[in-house]
């Protein structure tokens, strides 16, 4: 994603008691053998349900994620930044389109998903409930939030569901542009004038705590997802993703002589693990449940877009064209 920290429902094995044991064996053998599941294949009800839930959340994160950065398109400084940011935010909308499509192959229509998003029945990545106050915030998002997204997406692209993996492969190619652009923009601020350096340091200070929340609660307090791991729905644990992110990007932040707002952040050379101040998981819960600085606005904007666009979609409908589940 966007959206480490997927929220999964707690799963119990007895949910599986109703499944045909022979088909279930075949299904699990296929996954264990590294093969992909395609939409027409038999799959357990739980697999379908959790996949829809995860892909849908991911798609919502992309379309909501277009908002904080979209704020800065008009104000982006100069042609180069302007064109890059326009293309970057457009890609995020494109990612939403690809992911909704992948979820549609599992039998939930895009309109249903959109409705669940707007009515608050479906989540999106918590990090987009924070505001992008300055230009530097938008560059930090493009660099670090997208970096976090890539960690997740690369892991998930090795999952078991064919259409989701294909969407992610396409997405990852575009994300590498986002990451490069974001890093380029941050480098220019960090090596630039005093005003610029201050701007980017302040933005980093603001985005660090949500970034630590990004991958979700630590494994020891997370919902158990063993069966989802076995089915290759969830591909890496929250802590694994967080460690990988820190490993790849903290050195890059430090080389720009920017400071990370956590005095305890350091790599323990013995355990090869990063140590850090435990993020405030109460705040995480509060924000994910609707009480963040921008939750209301994000959903209100999405709702406005849907409502203002309704007459267009209605006028485009042709009575003989019918919606069927897309193929792949």
């Amino acid at each position: 994603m966007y959206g480490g920290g997927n929220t999964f429902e707690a799963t119990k094995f007895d949910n599986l008691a109703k499944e045909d044991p022979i088909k279930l064996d075949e299904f699990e053998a296929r996954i264990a053998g590294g093969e992909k599941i395609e939409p027409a294949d038999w799959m357990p009800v739980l697999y379908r349900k959790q996949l829809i839930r995860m892909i849908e959340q991911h798609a919502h994160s992309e379309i909501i994620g277009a908002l904080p950065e979209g704020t800065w398109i008009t104000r982006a400084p100069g042609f180069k930044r302007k064109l890059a940011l326009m293309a970057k935010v457009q890609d995020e909308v494109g990612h939403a389109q690809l992911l909704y499509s992948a979820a549609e192959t599992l039998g939930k229509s895009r309109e249903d998903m959109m409705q669940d998003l707007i009515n608050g029945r479906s989540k999106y990545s918590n990090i987009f409930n924070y505001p992008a106050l300055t230009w530097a915030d938008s560059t930090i998002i493009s660099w670090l939030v997208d970096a976090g997204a890539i960690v997740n997406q690369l892991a998930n692209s090795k999952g078991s569901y064919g259409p989701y993996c294909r969407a992610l492969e396409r997405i990852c190619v575009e994300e590498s542009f986002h990451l490069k652009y974001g890093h380029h923009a941050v480098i220019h601020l960090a090596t630039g004038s005093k005003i610029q350096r201050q701007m980017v340091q302040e933005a980093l200070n603001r985005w660090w705590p949500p970034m630590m929340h990004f991958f979700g609660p630590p494994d020891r307090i997370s919902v158990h997802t063993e069966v989802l791991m076995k089915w290759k729905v969830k591909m890496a644990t929250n802590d694994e993703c967080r460690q990988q992110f820190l490993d790849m990007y903290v050195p890059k932040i430090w080389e720009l002589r920017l400071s990370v707002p956590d005095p305890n952040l350091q790599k323990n050379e013995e355990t090869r693990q990063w140590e850090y101040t435990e993020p405030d998981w109460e705040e995480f819960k509060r924000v994910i449940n609707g009480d963040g600085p921008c939750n209301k606005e994000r959903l209100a904007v999405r709702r406005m877009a849907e409502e203002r666009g309704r007459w267009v979609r209605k006028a485009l409908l042709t009575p003989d064209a019918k919606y069927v589940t897309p193929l792949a």
Partner: protein
Amino acid sequence: MDKVINKIALKELLYKTADDLLILGHRNSEWTGIGPLLEEDIAFSSMAQDKIGQSLAIYELLHDLGEADPDTVAFMRNAEQFHNCKFVELPIGEYEFSLVRHFLYDHSILLRFQQLSTSSCQPLAQIARKLVGELRYHIMHADLFIKKLGTGTDESISRLQTTLEQAIPFALGVFERSPQESDLISDLIFTGEDDLYTRWCHEITKVIESTALVLPQHNLSEAKTGGRIGQHTPHLQPLLDEMAEVLRLDPSTDW
């Protein structure tokens, strides 16, 4: 360009074309992430990017002719130094307004570039020839949406009709003549706004006639002019301020 031509007139032509594209590109980009349909959001954003890119190509040509660099020219001038028509600076409004503007304006810019592709100003002709390809997509898109929504539901037809009536006087402002246009015509740089206007009427009439819409009676004398000589609506300066907000924090540095 070996022979002595009226450079001021040429620059004026370049400025107004580039300014139109820059401003409209910015306006259209405001739809990114809030369009009526995800696919349309993506298509509209691409076309906005194309427009900004097209303006950049022309500002680069102006730079070659001795003007300041593109970033300075595009983001450091005030409203009265802009030569865009008033049409492009109006807020995006509801989707029907942005769509009708896209339809009316893009037909004019495609014709302009088609005309300029045989201009005696070689570098300009080269840019124009290259851009007609991507503009063809813009026109395919605009025509299809006008046709679909212009024959869709009662609501879509009436929305488009109302907006068309409001937009036409502004659209006519695209063809505001420049003071030294006769020099451009005699130098074979550009065949002139009147010629463009005649062709444009023909093109948009063809499309409108295939819908339930009625093209309002129009006459160049009702055109909302003034944009080409730096007289603008109150909407332009705030937009320019926004576009330059970050750059102005420190114009001397590399962002």
